């Protein structure tokens, strides 16, 4: 069995607010192995983004344990173990596309020639070759998000954390980027953790779907899928796909029924 990349045991996170504690995450148990594509799906407020941010050391858990490659999230971050893709591209507007992609490399102290080679390689990978000298405002939203993915890939982390990266894009662009992302995952064998609130997106992309529910944020179902790694968008019409989508929907509904 592949090595554990993320190992979470009984993790909880409680925010202390003026109106009393908010239980953002409660009793989370989750193992993510090398090479998996794991989606967190759930309604807003279920803690899926928070869980991703805990993995990235952007939030601190208040209970339980979490290990990234056997290290604490902070040590993993200091080792630059993961690349993070945010909901918005968050490109720096005063840097052209190439210099946005090389930003993490500059921070890590990589020599200039090597940085440029990396930028070229990963901009080609996300089909943005030739846009090196453009500034972010000259690119469409989808192209900007692809540039931000190239930026996350540029320092070649084994773990890719993606927080609803295609949430703000229209469906056609989204389908296209989903396919590109799958191909990338297939080629590079990276571990991907992907937050979404779209059922088809989660089922199409994932090898493992984590269904979450709000108040308190918790995991209510974990579904393993066995679609081939080089699947195409056509699988969305297959009975298998619809069965899994149905199970995810049932899970989400159960999570809500709990509230009423």
């Amino acid at each position, binding site marked *: 069995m592949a090595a554990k990349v993320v190992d979470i045991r009984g993790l909880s996170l409680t925010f202390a607010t003026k109106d009393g504690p908010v239980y953002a995450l409660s009793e989370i148990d989750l193992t993510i192995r090398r090479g998996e594509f794991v989606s967190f799906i759930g309604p807003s407020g279920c803690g899926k983004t928070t869980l991703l941010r805990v993995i*990235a*050391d*952007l939030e601190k858990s208040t209970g339980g344990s979490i290990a990234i490659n056997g290290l604490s999230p902070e040590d993993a*971050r*200091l080792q*630059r173990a*993961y*690349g*993070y893709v*945010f*909901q*918005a591209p*968050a490109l*720096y*507007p*005063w*840097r*052209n596309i190439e210099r946005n992609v090389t*930003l*993490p490399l*500059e*921070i*890590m102290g990589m020599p200039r020639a090597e940085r440029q080679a990396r930028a070229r390689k990963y901009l080609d990978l996300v089909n943005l070759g030739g846009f090196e000298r453009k*500034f972010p*405002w000259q690119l469409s939203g989808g192209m900007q998000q692809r540039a931000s993915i190239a930026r996350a890939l540029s320092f070649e982390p084994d773990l890719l954390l993606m927080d609803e990266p295609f949430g703000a894009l229209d469906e056609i662009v989204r389908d296209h980027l989903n396919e590109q992302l799958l191909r990338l995952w297939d080629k590079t064998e990276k571990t991907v953790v992907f937050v979404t609130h779209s059922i088809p997106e989660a089922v199409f992309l994932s090898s493992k779907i984590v269904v979450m529910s709000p108040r308190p944020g918790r995991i209510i179902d974990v579904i393993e899928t066995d679609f081939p790694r080089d699947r195409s968008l056509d699988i969305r019409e297959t009975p298998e796909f619809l069965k899994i989508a149905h199970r995810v929907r049932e899970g989400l509904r159960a999570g809500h029924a709990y509230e009423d």
Partner: protein
Amino acid sequence: MAAAKTTPITRLLAGHAGPVAVLGLAFLGLWYAGAVWLNADLQIDAFARAGTDWGFSDLVAGTWAQERPLLPAPHQVLAEMWKTIAETGITSKRSLVFHGWVTLSSTLLGFAAGTLLGILLAVGIVHVRVLEKSLMPWIIASQTIPILAVAPMVIVVLGAIGLKGLIPKAVISTYLCFFPVAIGMVKGLRAPDLLQLDLMWTYSASARQTFFYLRWPTALPFLFAGLKVAISISLVGAIIAELPTGAQAGLGARLLAGSYYGQTIQIWSALVTAALMAALLVALMGGIERQVARLMGARP
């Protein structure tokens, strides 16, 4: 819009030059009218003393040509400026270029020091929590003190410890112009959004790297907004600093000497020169700002 006929006039009004020129002409008209109105009494007295008959056109011509008018006409000011800027050697005590340079040098020195001070204060305030609480009220309080009242004391005190001439004037300019820079930079250094800061965190960037890669470039537009205010009040500070101490040189000294001897034309030409200098300095800042924005890939 339908293809309207473009005449030279419509083209002029469409740009900046047209409206600015129209306003300028209106202002000149008001100035000339004001000169007639304010100088009329003196002129009528003069006619009476000389025992000459006079009509309205004589009155107008007279009020625009007095030697010591209450309000000199624009062409008198221009003539004086031409004489003292172009026709007088720049080393002469009567040259406005000489006086302008004296004021400009302390303006620029004070501006440079004030900008540096403003930036350093802002960096401290943004990075050290204690400084924010302790410095900010003092920075704001500093600007409520009337500088006209403080300037003589500062200059006397500095003079007592042997600092004379350029430095004390630059200190007054610094005192005035660090403020807009500091306030603008505090806002600017805090302008990066959370996502951009989170990104730096995921790269394990040091505070120093976050500053140079993110905070500083984000703050630059705020810095330039502050600099444009700072450079013009720096000039005001330099002139104010020349007023109370009987400085021998500078536009402020020129203003003071003019008012001692009732040389209104001299006062006004120094004033207009100062205004032109301020406009040029602000325009220069605007030019640098645009150049920097272009290099930073701003949308044209």
